[in-house]
């Protein structure tokens, strides 16, 4: 049996807690410990918050989906929505040593995703969907 579950829900921050419960449960089923479950929860939360907040206003309450697969190596997650394509790879890496006055407000979401997951990739689909794919391996041993 494939251990795959998908949650489809409105693009609204009121559902972030539900997303967190869903993702951390799937991370647990995939064999991660509690701290790693929180890390995976943050990575997905950041991606979903971006879908909710950076989608054009008109379409912003469209449903989007989160698919989690427990695989032999750990977990694979795909977040899919109908927002306009954007240039994921050219988003600037934040300077985390900057002082409080010199930092932009925000700009830490994608950075945290990449820190907490082993792999993060953005692919605008031919189907008019954007897909953000991320995965994390279970620690060896």
């Amino acid at each position, binding site marked *: 049996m494939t251990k795959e579950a998908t949650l489809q829900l409105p693009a609204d*921050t*009121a559902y972030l807690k539900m997303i967190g419960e869903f993702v951390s449960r799937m991370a647990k089923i995939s064999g991660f410990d509690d701290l790693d479950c929180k890390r995976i929860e943050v990575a997905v939360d950041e991606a979903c918050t971006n879908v909710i907040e950076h989608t054009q206003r008109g379409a912003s309450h469209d449903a989007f989906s989160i698919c989690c697969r427990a695989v032999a190596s750990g977990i694979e997650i795909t977040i899919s929505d109908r927002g306009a394509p954007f240039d994921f790879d050219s988003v600037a890496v934040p300077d985390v040593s900057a002082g409080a006055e010199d930092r932009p*407000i*925000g700009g*830490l979401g994608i950075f945290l995703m990449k820190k907490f997951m082993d792999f993060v990739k953005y692919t605008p689909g031919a189907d008019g969907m954007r897909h953000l794919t991320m995965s994390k391996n279970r620690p060896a041993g």
Partner: protein
Amino acid sequence: MSMEITNRFENDVLVLGLDGRFDAHAAPQVEETFTTLFSQGATKVVVDFSAVGYLSSAGLRVLLVMIRKLKSAQGAIVLAGLQPHVKEVFDISGFTDLFTIEGSVQEALAAI
């Protein structure tokens, strides 16, 4: 709501108690509560994180807004009781260097 926010004053220090998930749903609530109290003159703030089990970058964003406003008003902010997961998000984002962080509200009140 995803977060319960309480506030009380110890002498002139505002103690903001957060309980729940500090995510993009809670962030506007926290910012609003702070902004209201700040506009009423609160410039010394202790934030009690002991009941915050979850933090995303939306929470960090609000904390950055708060420290900037407080510094520009010659005020101060001290954080207390960060759980390990919350501390890790702070460390990775370089926020540990921006804030004074204490173990308990008592220690934070002594340090501010």
